[in-house]
């Protein structure tokens, strides 16, 4: 789902240093934050928000859970949010054990909930709302418009938006899918969402080496009417090394740059050599 200004957001781990900083930025931006969770501070108030012991206490009163929760507590928090009826759980933490991630994803599926991440920088709908750790409030980077942006990396996603904004092309939304190898919403699934979204007229994909997310997205892009353009990071990275993200590794010939570029280009998706080429490619794509 694409985040809307009307979505009510519950922040798990709201009282921590980062939870406090980003939640107050979200409130300033106009996000509909309805409460926070911290079992040790239940009953108090923080940033003017009520603090609860668990998401379950807010069942039916929120749509999106945003997790500022350390990696080893993420599984419990995510399942709590799914069982409390969250439609979307945004999981920022990196280094969550993979077995916990699989349990989180199975729990989400059983409850009809979607997870974004782990290891995502969050979601932004410029001019309306944001949830996560993206500089939505920086008007040089984000601007309301019609381009959907999907990125495995927060920093690269911000750079792509900066380039689009600089060329006068605003964004319908930014969807951070996350840099982990196993994630709740894949690049392909995010692309399908943008394809269905009426406010989105074109899509930019910021991929990386490792895995097969870009190849799978290319399969879907083949049948799309909306123009799609991509940049894939890691062309010059050595094989066999994890490039910062757990998911960014070329392993035994799998997950390499060339295969991704070939798959996207043969699906009619132009691939930029530099992030700065994205605006020109997206205006030219599909025409």
């Amino acid at each position, binding site marked *: 789902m694409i985040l809307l200004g009307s979505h009510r957001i519950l922040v798990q781990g709201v009282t921590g240093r980062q939870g406090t900083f980003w939640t107050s930025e979200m409130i300033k931006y106009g996000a509909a934050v309805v409460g926070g969770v911290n079992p040790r501070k239940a009953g108090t108030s923080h940033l003017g928000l009520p603090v609860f012991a668990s998401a379950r206490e807010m069942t039916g009163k929120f749509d999106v859970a945003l997790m500022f929760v350390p990696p080893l507590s993420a599984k419990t928090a995510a399942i709590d949010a799914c069982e409390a009826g969250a439609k979307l759980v945004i999981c920022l933490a*990196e280094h969550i054990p*993979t077995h916990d991630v699989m349990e989180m994803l199975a729990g989400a599926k059983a409850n009809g909930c979607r997870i974004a991440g782990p290891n995502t920088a969050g979601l932004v709908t410029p001019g309306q709302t944001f949830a996560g750790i993206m500089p939505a409030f920086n008007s040089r980077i984000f601007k309301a418009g019609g381009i959907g942006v999907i990125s495995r990396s*927060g920093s*690269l*996603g911000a750079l792509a938006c900066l380039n689009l904004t600089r060329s006068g092309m605003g964004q319908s939304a930014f969807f951070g899918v996350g840099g982990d190898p196993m994630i709740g919403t894949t690049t392909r699934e995010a692309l399908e969402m943008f394809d269905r979204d009426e406010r989105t007229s074109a899509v930019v994909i910021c991929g990386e080496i490792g895995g097969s997310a870009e190849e799978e997205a290319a399969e879907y892009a083949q049948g799309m009417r909306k123009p799609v353009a991509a940049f894939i990071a*890691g062309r010059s990275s050595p094989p066999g090394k994890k490039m*910062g993200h757990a998911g960014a590794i070329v392993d035994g010939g799998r997950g390499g740059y060339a295969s991704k570029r070939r798959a996207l280009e043969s699906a009619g998706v132009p691939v930029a050599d530099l992030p700065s080429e994205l605006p020109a490619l997206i205006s030219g794509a599909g025409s």
Partner: protein
Amino acid sequence: MNFEEWASKALIAERGIVVPRGRIARSPEEAKAAARGPCAVKAQVPAGRRGKAGGVKLASGPGEATEFAASMLGSEISGCKVEKVLVEERVDVARELYAAVLSDRGNRCPTVLFSPSGGIDIEEAAASDSEAMRSCQVDIRRGFGPAEAESLLEGLDLGDRKPEIAAALAALYSAYRDLDAELLEINPLAIAAGGEVVALDCKFVLDDSAAARRPELAARASREQATELEIRAAEAGLRLIELDGDVGVLANGAGLTMATMDAIAHFGGRPANFLEIGGDSYTKAEPALRIILENPGIKCLLVNFCGAFARTDVMAGGVVAAWKKLRPSIPAFFSVHGTGEEDAIELIRSELGIEPYDLMDDAVVAAVRAAEEARR
């Protein structure tokens, strides 16, 4: 984190899977003492295809075992130095099978794999013959027990050993869960002449993200091959990968750092390193820059920030502090955007007298040119 065969076998043996009796030897003398009759001498390196590289030999007794150990120890196999060998009793094999459990990134669940024909070329066999490999996607909330194993094996001709094989598969799945494994593979899983089901080899990969909650396990992993500087960076909580170029790179976030390296290569330069200070490590710009500058081959520094969570003013502060202390004689080029950018740019301007570029590409081109000039 990869585990050597002997360490992997000890872990599955503790969890109910039969392995041959064996001992680790670090010298030919220890190998002689460990050998009792016919045995296998196996180099302990965390790499596949050991057998083809001469890392597995069958000895008739202590004499040959000593000889094989002497030739393997200290040699290099698949790029890894052999520091120990496993001396293991010989098993008379009636049939070789394959079994594995792995975290399947595409299906987002554990997957159990089984093949009635194991051996060294299993990957090729599975690719050419889809019947050669059976797989089961496991509902992690329900698990995988003997009943699920029986249905995975249904229709396969495994003689009267099917219950034992099913039990071994269920034990393997439990071990995978218990060990926070990314991969637990037995190739081959053997049916011995006497009917026993035995793991002749074993490969265990611990999920890196689980190492924090499994310190006792992580301590038994094989050391990753890394340079001295990469090890020091890791001790400082930083992920450094040394490369062979001469443009030092400091950026935040894995994606942006890779993209910065790609841009350097695009404009004809060569990056000297991958080092990112995104996420929680954005406060570590100072130690990060110190590490980058220790590379004697770098000709210039390129700093590219596009900060979200990583505040650019905090990162710029770290860069300025390290630069002023070390006073390197190389030029530096900056491109700074995102959270805190006004303060960051002002700091770089006033403290270092350097004007950051507004466009990332311009900063990259300037750095590549400076490296070229310095090489002349």
